[in-house]
């Protein structure tokens, strides 16, 4: 039997919810049908009345997930440093904001609160007594473009190593450990505009070798491609960064040891993915390598299926993608 505990984040259903195409109940029923052990909600996205939902809404929400026999696991919150022109939030703002969100998380029955690195380690330490008193695991999400060695995350790690508390931790998102683009990355480009077969060959070489990008571009030109193919490769195959957002691609060297190190401070993680093929393979992210580490380290927390691939027109639904993701993880766990 697999020991992995699965969660599904409602985040992936956000666009349909924000556009009024689906209600929270519709989405929870869909997630229920997938058969995960728990779910995650993004507080500003689906908690009506955020940041101060009404008693009535909270009661209805609890009644809803109980009726569907679902388990709330993670309450995702933010540190909205863009709120004020000309400055980040102050410590008072970060501290009181997070307590407010933790109170609602507790009242709604969640176990884990996921915040962001903008919280800063010093404020996190001040929040430890509240996490302990509320019996919540307060965590910051490690998300691309950051890696375990990013200075701001090292400060959190130093705090966690010092205080050794089960109430503080990380939510690792696999966007910090991506090797290359997903297999579906070229789906939205018409065949007549590029040499797709050649570009897929280059994509796989990029992900599985350290051949310099300049040499890969020369191969495109020498193997039948043209400048348009080189342009696509530069834009879509070699990076997932958009300024300070998005993710880098780490090719053959995502930070496996950083992942292992952070696992001891993790009770929940974001299994970010873009596409799982019919053979239960997620090209671009080394799930076999990371699940092996999780098993070696006896990881007992949840892994959430966080789908972000609909932009690439994969040809199957989000629900099918998540079902495949869960099956893939269970298979890899068994085989590890």
């Amino acid at each position: 039997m697999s020991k992995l505990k699965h969660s599904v984040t409602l985040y992936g259903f956000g666009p349909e919810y924000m556009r009024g195409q689906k209600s929270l109940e519709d989405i929870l029923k869909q997630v229920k049908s997938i058969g995960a052990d728990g779910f995650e909600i993004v507080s500003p996205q689906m908690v009506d009345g955020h940041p101060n939902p009404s008693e009535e809404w909270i009661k209805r929400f609890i009644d809803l997930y109980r009726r569907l026999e679902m388990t709330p696991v993670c309450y995702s919150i933010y540190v909205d440093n863009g709120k004020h022109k000309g400055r980040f939030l102050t410590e008072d703002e970060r501290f009181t904001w997070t307590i407010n969100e933790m109170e609602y998380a507790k009242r709604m029955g969640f176990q884990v609160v996921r915040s962001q690195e903008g919280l800063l380690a010093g404020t996190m330490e001040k929040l430890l007594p509240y996490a302990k008193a509320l019996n919540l695991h307060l965590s910051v999400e490690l998300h691309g473009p950051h890696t375990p060695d990013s200075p701001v995350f090292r400060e959190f790690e130093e705090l966690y190593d010092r205080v050794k508390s089960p109430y503080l931790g990380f939510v690792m998102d696999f966007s910090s450990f991506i090797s290359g683009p997903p297999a579906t990355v070229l789906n939205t480009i018409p065949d007549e505009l590029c040499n797709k077969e050649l570009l897929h060959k280059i994509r796989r070489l990029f992900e599985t070798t350290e051949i310099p990008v300049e040499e890969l571009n020369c191969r495109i030109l020498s193997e039948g491609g043209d400048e348009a193919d080189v342009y696509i490769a530069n834009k879509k195959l070699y990076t997932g960064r958009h300024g300070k957002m998005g993710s880098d691609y780490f090719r053959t060297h995502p930070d496996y040891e950083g992942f292992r190190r952070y696992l001891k401070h993790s009770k929940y993680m974001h299994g970010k993915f873009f596409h799982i093929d019919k053979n239960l393979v997620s090209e671009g992210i080394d799930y076999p390598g990371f699940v092996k580490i999780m098993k070696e380290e006896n990881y007992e927390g949840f892994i959430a299926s966080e789908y972000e691939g609909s932009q690439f027109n994969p040809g199957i639904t989000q629900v099918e993608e998540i079902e495949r993701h869960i099956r893939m993880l269970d298979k890899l766990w068994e085989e590890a």
Partner: protein
Amino acid sequence: MTVEEKMIKIQKLLEGSAAIGRFNNPIKEGSLTNRNICGVTTGYTFGLNNLSYRGIWLSTFEDIKIMVDGSEVLQENVVLSIKDMKIPVRDLSGHSEVFWGAEDVCGLIVYQIGGLAAGKHKIVIDLKRRNDFGHTVGNGTQGYEEAQEFLNPLHIRDEAELEVM
């Protein structure tokens, strides 16, 4: 097709694909109406679609400009309507307490005696807003000069032909 022709098409496609899944079309279709107050038309209004996958703070708006049928609307005549409040668009940056969530009905009201004539009108909205969150961190003003995601607001332009019935 020449390489140059392909490049033009690809550039256009990739620029467009960056917007897929984002919320870059604020004008709500079919929402333009005149405001009739006791038989007096005091202006017109149209709805706005949310601009984020998770909702936004009104204070992140830095500028909202509206053009109607080719003429720019005076900003002093425009308010944003949300949660039973009507906030002048030039004052939005001061409203860091107001969150625009998925369930909130939001729109712009332009005060103009007589409103718009019945028929179709071309509405253009040009706005700038900061991201609500980013990955550059700091406390207060410390290190803020590095926060490119906040220092360079998003520029969103949308246009639509709406009809006043």
